[in-house]
């Protein structure tokens, strides 16, 4: 039977490059003087500058990971960690410079804002260039702004939460993030407020040989709820770009947060991102994640279930094509009684791409009567690709119930045969099976993102059957 060709993700939209124009670009490298300069450019309070310098010290002490994909090509001396775009923060798209606005137009952000979002933040290189939220949410006390504004305007809340959920000594790239972070979103949802329509932040890195280090801090207070969507992309350059963002989520008692991500970085990007949620009593945290871009991705969102009855769910898909090594997964720690976690992960490898599902489920002794369930499935589309599953399951109480299952394989010949016997062509049958494989994830995304994901898994079938 001829091989079905499944095309790479169509990147035409994402690969649009603007001129590398900026108001300020920091020199490449990572020194205390560079850190001080970033802080000065941002006109930050002293405590934040000192925090950055402390993080740099820790970065220099920590080792690179001794596991996972090879990231030895990363040389911080080749990366500019701060690129200030030639635009201030605006609350109207009309005030955003034409070329930057055009980029976000093509990515469909203003359109989505009009149709289905309650608020939008758009970051271009190292700074947020647009932020806006519906008036009724402002009246309800919801805060949605860029991190720089939050540091200055809400220092009490920021100091209490900033890099407390993800401490700077967690790993080397968190320490790096602490030293050079820039941009990102701050969301504060007051007690009992339900934000029914999603907020979305979009991160775009245009500058070559640069890094993006946005910080997202979301606090969903008691009984409140929020759906937050994060999108990211960059055009492809010959040298590596680096993304080391950090997402800290505080989901207080009885609150609910859904955090959806469509990651479509260019294939020269090292995506070394860190995301963590602290989940309170009877609160729930849902992660929905689509990982399509990047040359290397090491991304393992984490939920720490600290409150009794806390719940978390992770639904994720990775699609690795030629030259990509996507090492993704999920971590959960059960720290309180009657907590529960459900993980549903899928991956597709093709054209020599490598997908790894790497994970941790830990049910601690105090997490009496907690439950964990993990399911992961990997689809291999050819015999030059690689797919690995590396989960750690750590159960420390007899009252817990935990199960894990994983499957690996190719598209079933029987399923193709069945569909073909119903009159479908081989190409259509295979396309349907791959879409069906991804469906449990796409159905969790907002409609417009599900459509985008289906476009991302652009199937083009060719070749003779026989």
């Amino acid at each position: 039977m001829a091989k079905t060709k499944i095309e790479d993700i169509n990147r035409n939209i994402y690969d649009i490059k603007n001129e590398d124009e900026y108001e300020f670009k920091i020199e490449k490298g990572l020194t205390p003087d560079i850190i001080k300069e970033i802080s000065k450019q941002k006109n930050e309070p002293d405590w934040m500058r000192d925090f950055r310098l402390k993080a740099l010290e820790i970065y220099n002490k920590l080792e690179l990971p001794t596991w996972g994909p090879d990231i030895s090509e990363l040389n911080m001396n080749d990366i500019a960690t701060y690129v200030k775009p030639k635009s201030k923060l605006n609350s109207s798209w009309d005030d955003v410079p034409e070329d930057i606005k055009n980029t976000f137009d093509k990515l469909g952000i203003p359109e989505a804002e009009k149709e289905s979002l309650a608020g939008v933040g758009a970051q271009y290189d190292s700074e947020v260039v647009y932020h806006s939220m519906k008036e009724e949410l402002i009246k309800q006390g919801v805060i949605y702004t860029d991190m720089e504004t939050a540091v200055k305007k809400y220092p009490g809340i920021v100091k209490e939460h900033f890099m407390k959920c993800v401490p700077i000594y967690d790993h080397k790239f968190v320490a790096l993030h602490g030293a050079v972070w820039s941009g990102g979103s701050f969301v504060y949802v007051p007690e009992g407020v339900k934000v029914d329509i999603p907020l979305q932040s979009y991160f775009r890195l245009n500058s070559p040989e640069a890094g993006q280090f946005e910080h997202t801090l979301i606090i969903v207070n008691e009984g409140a709820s929020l759906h937050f969507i994060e999108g990211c992309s960059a055009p492809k350059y010959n040298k590596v770009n680096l993304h080391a963002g950090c997402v800290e989520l505080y989901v207080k008692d009885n609150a609910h947060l859904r955090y959806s991500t469509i990651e479509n970085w260019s294939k020269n990007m090292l995506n070394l991102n860190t995301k963590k949620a602290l989940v309170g009593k009877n609160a729930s945290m849902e992660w929905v994640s689509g990982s399509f871009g990047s040359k290397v991705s090491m991304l393992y969102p984490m939920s720490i279930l600290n409150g009794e009855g806390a719940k978390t769910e992770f639904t994720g898909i990775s699609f690795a094509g030629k030259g990509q090594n996507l090492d993704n997964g999920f971590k959960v720690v059960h720290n309180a009684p009657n907590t529960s976690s459900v993980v549903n992960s899928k991956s597709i490898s093709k054209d020599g791409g490598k997908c790894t599902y790497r994970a941790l489920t830990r049910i601690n002794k105090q997490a009496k009567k907690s439950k964990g369930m993990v399911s992961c499935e990997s689809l291999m589309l050819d015999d030059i690709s690689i797919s690995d599953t590396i989960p750690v399951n750590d159960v420390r109480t007899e009252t817990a119930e935990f199960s894990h299952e994983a499957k690996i394989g190719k598209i079933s010949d029987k399923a193709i045969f069945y569909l073909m016997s119903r009159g479908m062509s081989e190409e259509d049958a295979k396309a349907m099976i791959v879409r069906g494989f991804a469906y449990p994830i796409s159905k969790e995304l907002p409609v417009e993102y599900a459509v985008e994901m289906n476009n991302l898994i652009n199937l083009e079938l060719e070749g003779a059957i026989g």
Partner: protein
Amino acid sequence: MEKIKLNETPVRTSRNFNMNNIKLENIKIPKVIKTFDNISINNETSKIQIEKTSNNNYDLTYGLGNIFTNQVKNNSNQSLKVQVDSKTNKELQIDFKFDSNNSNLVDSIIINANESSKGTIIIKYLSDENKEYYHNGIIKLFAKKNSNINVIVVNLLNSNSNNFVSIDNELCENANVNYTIIDFGGKNSISNYYSNLKGEHSSNSLNSIYLGKENQLFDLNYIAELRGIKTNIDIEVQGALTDKAIKHFKGTIDFKKGAKKAKGNENESCMLLSDNAKSLALPMLLCSEEDVEGNHSSSSGKTGEKELFYIMSRGFDIKEAMKLMVRAKFNKILENIKNEDLKNQIINEIDKKLD
């Protein structure tokens, strides 16, 4: 005392997960190995021959680590070679009995299963109750074309001892190897199992039971590499932990490129009988070949309350009910042991450990 790091996984993961290797403290590795003579051998047929050998010249793909591998290769006090030529399934049983005069065993056992041969090799490690004994052994199996071999390794050492075992199998075309490991003894019981399924249509099933109590630590690192077409591996691991016992299970099924139509299944299940016991598992699937089927599942948790209630409503006290539950869980694997005496000995040991 310095920590010894051993039993590395084939692929590393985050150091924070504590599963890449095991670090042991206070392990006395004997420098001088005295003789170990308390061995009994029971042979059903002359077609399975056993002899002493001085040749420990073989390669291990993994093993527990250089310290342990080199000790066996250079300083063993028992080196045996088993030659299987039988055409019917006959048994050879080797019992190593530790006592105060035989307290350190460093053994190398080579099993050559010749073409189309059949046989069952039972290797038991037994000890009296009190002393701390040391066992470090390698079992190397060469399963030639069309051979059909059962190997049963039984560790019934006392819980003061240290047990280190490396198993390394090479399977040729159409070879079929059924391995059963009963792992009950040792304060630390550290085992490394590796199968190289290089021959087309070769097949390996590995069934393993562990039962931990008090402060016992089990570190099981089972690795199967599927290289030949239509090769097959089935790993079934059942265990129960009580008191403060800890188990690390690391199971790897690695489909190498070219292993077309290979199949691999791995199931690991742990019953936790105490709130101080810990069960850690790392069931890995590595895949560089498209046309394969790989599955793994892992579970841990408490004994079923409904089942326990049902058994107790029939007049059993909780301890007896627990024993029944554990035995029932292990039964699927114990059924593979055809030697009734051995099976009864294992069942008695289960009852004794859960008393």
